[in-house]
């Protein structure tokens, strides 16, 4: 079946037939519908649909929010590297990075809206902000940055073949793109602060000595660790998704040098993060935690959260991928690169899980029990809706917009190579 939507697809790019595309999106649409039903139940009936309570107030959704926001940091960081530091090589992944960032942030905001509830009163957070809450800063920064991402996404949409035929869209896209460095700067500023504030949110929890940290002035160390870890895994996630899209679409989308550059940046930042995290952990074990009346080993006596989780977070999913990405010989192999990038992404997810779930599970008072939490199906459904939404937005963007500007050129290069090989083989 030929593509009936061919005239909407960028000239010279090969995409699957409309039928195959519909087959691909069908299960994701089903998952989205199920997820929307789950979220609807939570919004209509309230948080009694979840397994969270006043004691275990953060669960799967906050873990998901923190993780996707960290992974989505690739958008701001790639924009920063490309438009501010002028690393032109990253131009070939910037559009994809923007879509990933948009998906991650809009997904996170949606889940937050379900978690907070009362969507009709969502404007209260802006009009009646709690001046003593770090969440206020997070809300302001995330909603502003989501606006930035939407504006950054606009030129990608307006470059669609059909829309580009409309002179006013063409000119607006051109003029907006000329100012993209402003958006990159604003995005970097906002991301820097809200990533930090998300980390700071845990660091200031005096009543939760497992998470509580000291730091600089009003900022606990987690403020800086969250920024650093997000900046470190952002490029890894871009690398991972680009590789995945290459495999699924069976197309070359970027040059291997771009993968290596992303890995080098990610590896370098990850190494710095691992070092900072190790120092922070040592300070916490020897000073901060005993100062609050707890010996660090006590936290790890509650199974299944043994010391293995700390080891896995810092060494297995931190140090190892950093070393792989910083070793030129290993970096030359895509397999190693992708494995290391996936490990780095798992590492940040594990860190956010520890900060969210382990923090709340551990007892802090003598009469406190150790709590277990398993998400309800409604929570899982809402989580899956975000995943499905992300896949759908990315799939449509990949099909109708030019996410990888070098794709066409790479295909021509492959054709040239094919011709050369045929000529060498004496075929013509």
């Amino acid at each position, binding site marked *: 079946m030929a593509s009936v939507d*061919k*005239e909407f697809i960028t*000239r*010279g790019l*090969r995409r699957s037939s409309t039928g195959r595309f519909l087959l691909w999106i069908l299960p994701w649409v089903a998952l989205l519908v199920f997820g929307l039903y789950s979220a609807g139940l939570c919004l209509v009936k309230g948080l009694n649909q979840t397994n969270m309570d006043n004691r275990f107030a953060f669960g799967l959704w906050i873990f998901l929010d923190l993780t996707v926001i960290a992974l989505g940091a690739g958008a701001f960081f790639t924009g920063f590297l490309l438009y501010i530091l002028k690393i032109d090589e990253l131009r070939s992944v910037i559009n994809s990075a923007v879509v990933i960032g948009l998906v991650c942030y809009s997904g996170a905001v949606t889940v937050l809206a379900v978690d907070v509830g009362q969507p009709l009163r969502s404007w209260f957070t802006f*009009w*009646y*902000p*709690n*001046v*003593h809450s770090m969440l*206020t*800063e997070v809300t*302001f920064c995330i909603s*502003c940055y989501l*606006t*930035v991402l939407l*504006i950054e996404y606009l030129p990608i949409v307006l*470059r669609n073949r059909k829309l*580009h035929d409309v*002179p*006013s869209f*063409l*000119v*607006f896209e*051109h*003029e*907006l793109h*000329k*100012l993209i460095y*402003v*958006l990159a700067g*604003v995005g970097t*500023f*906002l991301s820097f602060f809200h990533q930090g504030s998300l980390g700071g949110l845990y660091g200031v929890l005096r009543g939760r000595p497992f998470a509580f940290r000291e730091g600089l002035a009003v900022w606990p160390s987690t403020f800086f660790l969250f920024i650093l870890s997000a900046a470190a895994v952002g490029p890894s996630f871009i690398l991972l998704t680009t590789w995945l899209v290459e495999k699924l679409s069976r197309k070359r989308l970027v040059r291997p040098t771009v993968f290596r550059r992303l890995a080098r940046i990610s590896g370098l930042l990850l190494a710095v993060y691992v070092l900072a995290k190790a120092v922070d952990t040592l300070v916490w074990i020897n000073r901060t935690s005993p100062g609050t009346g707890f010996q660090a080993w006590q936290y790890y006596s509650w199974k299944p959260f043994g010391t293995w989780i700390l080891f896995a977070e810092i060494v297995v999913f931190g140090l190892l991928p950093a070393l792989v990405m910083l070793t030129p010989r290993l970096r030359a192999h895509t397999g190693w690169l992708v494995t290391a990038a996936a490990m780095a992404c798992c590492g940040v997810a594990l860190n956010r899980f520890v900060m969210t779930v382990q923090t709340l599970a551990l007892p802090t008072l003598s009469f406190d029990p150790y709590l277990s939490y398993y998400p309800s199906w409604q929570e899982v459904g809402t989580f899956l809706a975000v995943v499905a939404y992300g896949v759908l937005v990315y799939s449509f963007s990949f099909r109708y917009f*030019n996410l990888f*500007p070098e794709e*066409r*050129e790479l*295909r*021509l290069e*492959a*054709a*040239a190579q*094919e*011709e050369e090989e*045929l000529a060498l083989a004496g075929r*013509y």
Partner: protein
Amino acid sequence: MLPWIYGFNWNAGHIIFLGAFYMVLAALVATVASAAIRSRRALRMDQAEAIRWHSDFESMPACDQVCRHVLTGEFQSRQCPHAFDCRECETHAKLIQCHPLPRVEEPEEDVFGMAFPLDRFYHRGHTWARLEKDGTVLVGLDELGARLLGRPDALVLPKPGDRVHANGAAFHARRRDAEVRVVSPVDGEVVETGSAERGWYLRVKPTSNDAKTFRHLLRGAEIKPWIQREMERLQLALTAEGAAPALADGGVPVSDIAAAYPAADWDAVCGEMFLEG
């Protein structure tokens, strides 16, 4: 956190946060508003076609953006910084002053069995412009462009009185699934429309007739190396779009290339050859 909100204090922390937040909002609004105002101005100044050309040029692979002086061997490699508009190029002005093009004695250049008369100027988007005695300029498709489109299924020509812009759309043609924008080699006002049978498509009254009018167009000794390179590009585009490689050295392209490659993605091939993104 806002001044009218309970809990707001005029202290440094609140003012810094508030200031930063409003600055961010102001920057976002200013960016979008500025883009909108500039767009409106550009549309009023009829710059849409120039912007489209620049956008198309930017989306071309780097290997297709080579300077005309690479074609003639004066440079080993150089990417055109002016979107093929040599009227703005100081390097080109200096080069043609220091090294004028060698004279070609023949009235036309024969490349791969295709005739390229040398009494006219060629645009790299496969159109030509010929200055007539009455001061008008005839615009037509070159031999390779004509063979790529064959007999177009549809042709949309501008009306007499319409303006065309150099590097903007001269006319539109459709062949199979390919909608092609054919570029105009000159700026001016359309005074008459022609057809494939008449050998030209537009008669244009150029905006000016000075030496700069045609400076961005290829001529004389530049034609042969350019077409040789174009044939390589065509071969590559055909291979990439699913046509088996068939242009052996010394072969002559058929008169209707589109008909010879029914399986190829003709839209992509035409986009490549007519420099349309």
